[in-house]
């Protein structure tokens, strides 16, 4: 089980308190009605799925309830850092 640092609670907590929210920093369409089919495909379905350094969202569902972002290595599963939502990608 992962030990995850919540940047809001500022505590290392076990993974079962968190829900993974998928790839981070995917911008919602600013003008959805102007989006083409390929753009929707990109937004909804295409994912980086990298082997190595990965930006992802987590939500501290059984804690503060807030979303934050993390950088994790997908081979070792080791967290590099976590940071608050809205901050630029690290």
């Amino acid at each position, binding site marked *: *089980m*992962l030990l995850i640092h919540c940047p809001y609670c500022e505590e290392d907590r076990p*993974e*079962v308190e968190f*829900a*993974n929210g*998928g790839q981070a920093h995917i911008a919602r369409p600013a003008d959805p009605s102007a989006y083409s*089919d*390929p753009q*929707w*495909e990109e937004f*909804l*379905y*295409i*994912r*980086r*799925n*990298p*082997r190595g350094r*990965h930006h*992802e969202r987590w939500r501290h569902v059984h804690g503060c309830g807030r979303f934050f972002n993390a950088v*994790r290595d*997908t*081979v*070792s*599963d080791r967290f590099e850092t976590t940071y608050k939502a809205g901050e630029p990608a690290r």
Partner: protein
Amino acid sequence: MKRFSGFNLIGEAFRSHQGWPEHWPDKAPKPAYDAIIVGAGGHGLGAAYYLASKYGITNVAVIEKGWLGGGNTGRNTTIIRSNYLYDESAHLYDHAVKLWDGLSQELNYNIMYSKRGVLMLAHNVHDVQSFKRHIHANRLNGVDNEWLTAEECKAYCPPLDISPNARHPVLGGALQRRGGTARHDSVAWGYARAASALGVDIIQNCAVTGIRRGADGAAEGVETERGFIASKKIGVSAAGSTSVVMAMAGLQFPLESYPLQALVSEPVKPIFPCVVMSNTVHAYMSQSDKGELVIGAGTDQYISYSQRGAFHIIEHTLAAICEIFPIFTRMRMMRTWGGIVDVTPDRSPILAKTPVPGLYVNCGWGTGGFKATPGAADLLAYTIAHDAPHRINAPYALDRFRNGRLIDEAAAAAVAH
């Protein structure tokens, strides 16, 4: 290839079995092939076999980063079934079940396909309605699936607890009698041996490091740890690593790779006659011929290439098993392991051409690819040989994520898939 037969077995018995040749020779890569398959799992080896046996392309190489059958082929729970809801899925998975049927004879290798039946338990009214809908849909597609009452379930699988006071009462079940299990390693070995006998080169411990494309964008070959290998046709069957391989060709895929775990108990005498799945509780189990209870767990919630999962996933699975089968609460678990499964947004595979001419893909089987092994292999081989999909895998193209024609087994198949 020396065939396995009673005659040869007796002959070898007089020679201390010294006359059996190796199943497949370890080959060094040639400079060029007519077709290359990336990934020597059951799907990839099978595709090479069908290319050579059915579609007339024998100058084929299968390139594998590790050892053959060492990925998800050697890590799954070996369940075979085809009772999927949607027409596209029923056609695809039943194509595989039909091929499973004669596979031992065709490959001259005992893959131990055992039609012991797959029983899916209904625990609530929604399950009952949903399974009956599945059964009707399956019958329209010519796929066997039948409804059993709770008492009939108990008769078919005696360890079941069908008392009304159970935590998850059994209201009935859907049984596919043609479903069952097969020996997963034998599938890879059997395909490798048969393909090798037809002239296919199996190249292990040779990671693909790049996909070379020509000026027109078409595939020209693969860069590997042992040099460049040319081929105008490349089929990628790399399961959890598909995103990584496709990135080498400059493609991003609608895939995410998750760890999926399984575990086995200590071996015991035969007690569990079939495969039982409970989607509501998320437990599924069978007993191997060695006597171990083979139990499938769920995926972790985060993407990973670590080939290991978290312990609380195992705990959750065993809690479910103990609820449905109190008889097994004192069984000791012997081993757990994980594989990396590539999951698509609609939980259906991608078996198609790609935007790169000459590059074909078989991926996205998620948590349920083993059952499809012969079918997926045959259809990948067909697609490579004809440069066009078979009508069975035509719906499984990449463009469904653009035009919205998803095959949404995520909802239809629930979790245990």
